[in-house]
């Protein structure tokens, strides 16, 4: 007779997605252990801006996930709001010309059918929302459901609130499976941990972890840089971005794309994004990217020309070919669950991801159909 393991679930990855998985699994009554080879928030989470966005998502499975998450973040914020710097600041998407407004209008109308709330702001009223915006813009859309958290704090406090056992600086070297291929636990550089369920929340390294279980998951890194200004008073109230950002997010191009994304933070600095490029895990600072980010931001907010850029950081968004994350049970390996590949939306989508997996773990009906997020969908595409 084998002794029952004290662990019901092992979560691999202490980023925000892993933390949310731990949080909801623990609330469902499961004994959770989180393992990460680094510290908490050591990967993409620590390099993110903390966006909780619905505004940039077209109707479809990802938007459904985002809308579910928006509500969950509000609930989380009732408890942890201040610690995680939760701000229901709203998003403002702006267009420089009338053609852009026409596209935004059509996009917003489609989103409205899915439950996204937005308001058209004519060009001459943009200054009421954002006094420092450049004059002469054609207009924009205000999205009241967009919000922000400080991502590393969000991961750390969710993890603490989960009450899970946390093992940092420990590397998973194998996922052990039984005679019928079912998960038995993992082996790490410190020993063996048995558990009937393993959640792959390894972000950019999710593909490597899936490979340890003998299955393919084509997670790729998409590099992004963020510029950080000197500490300032609140000069940007919303998350403000240019209309072309939506197209860049949805694009699969390997080439460098930059679009203006500007937002303030409770701590003072203004964060300036966003760039996307597929260059593997190259960490080298790209002066060209920094220059383009600065130029885009200054075009939206000319006042930023008078401030100093204090630092820049880079991160790698974990991305799957169809831009949807892998969420839920892997039909190929019983007991293996995936929670990775959220690209640049992992902070926002984390609670829904965690909740849906907890539902599967406890045999309850998930709030959303998880079929679009199945990890084996790329096998099928290849077949």
């Amino acid at each position, binding site marked *: 007779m084998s002794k029952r393991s004290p662990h019901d679930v092992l979560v691999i990855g202490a980023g925000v997605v892993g933390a949310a998985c731990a949080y909801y699994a623990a609330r469902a009554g499961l004994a959770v252990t989180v393992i990460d080879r680094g510290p908490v928030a050591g990967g993409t989470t620590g390099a993110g801006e903390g966006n909780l966005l619905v505004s940039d998502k077209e109707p479809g499975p990802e938007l459904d996930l985002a809308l579910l998450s928006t509500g969950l973040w509000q609930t989380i914020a009732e408890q942890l709001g201040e610690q995680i710097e939760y701000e229901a600041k709203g998003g403002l998407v702006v267009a420089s010309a009338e053609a852009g407004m026409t596209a935004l209008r059509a996009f917003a109308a489609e989103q409205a059918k899915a439950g996204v709330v937005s308001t058209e702001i004519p060009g001459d009223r943009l200054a009421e929302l*954002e*006094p*420092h915006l450049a004059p002469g813009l054609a207009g924009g859309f205000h999205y009241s459901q967009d919000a922000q958290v400080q991502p590393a704090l969000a991961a750390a406090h969710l993890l603490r609130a989960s009450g899970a056992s946390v093992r940092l600086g420990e590397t998973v070297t194998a996922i052990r499976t039984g005679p019928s291929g079912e998960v038995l636990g993992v082996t790490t550089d410190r020993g063996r941990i048995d558990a009937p369920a393993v959640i792959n929340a390894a972000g950019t390294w999710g593909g490597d972890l899936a490979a340890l279980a003998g299955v393919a998951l084509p997670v790729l890194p998409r590099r992004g840089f963020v510029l950080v200004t*000197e*500490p*300032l*008073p*609140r*000069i*940007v*109230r919303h998350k403000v971005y240019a209309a072309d950002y939506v197209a860049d997010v949805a694009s699969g191009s390997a080439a460098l794309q930059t679009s203006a994304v500007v937002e303030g933070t409770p701590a*003072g600095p203004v964060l300036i994004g966003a760039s996307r490029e597929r260059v593997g895990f190259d960490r080298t600072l790209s002066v060209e990217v920094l220059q383009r980010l600065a130029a885009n931001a200054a075009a939206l907010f000319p*006042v930023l020309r008078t*401030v*100093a850029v204090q630092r820049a950081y880079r991160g790698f968004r974990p991305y799957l070919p169809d831009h949807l994350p892998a969420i839920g049970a892997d039909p190929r390996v019983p007991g293996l669950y995936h929670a990775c590949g959220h690209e640049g939306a992992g902070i926002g989508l984390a609670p829904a991801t965690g909740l849906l997996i907890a539902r599967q773990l406890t045999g309850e009906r998930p709030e959303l159909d998880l079929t679009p997020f199945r990890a084996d969908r790329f096998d099928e595409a290849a077949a």
Partner: protein
Amino acid sequence: MRRTPAELVGARPEPGHTIDFDGRPIPALPGQTIAAALWAEGILAWRTTRVNGRPRGAFCGIGACYDCLATVNGQASQRTCLLPAEPGTTVTTQEGHGRADLAV
């Protein structure tokens, strides 16, 4: 009578001038930094911090620590340990980030 730094190096400075610190004239010598001119007057703080409102002035003296920031000629967050105290320079004690005028 103790020796002064100027006496030690046999300094024969060119004619001095003044800078303005919070409305008060402060003597300065050609080539001195703003921080040096303020130290010479016994002034050690010309900034208050963003979070706790505590006084600060020059700490590292070589431009590395950014503690000596002040508003100089209307421009916030200037390193006074590097900027020369030129005739007519106006130095204002900086409160916090020094950019309150931008707040919306």
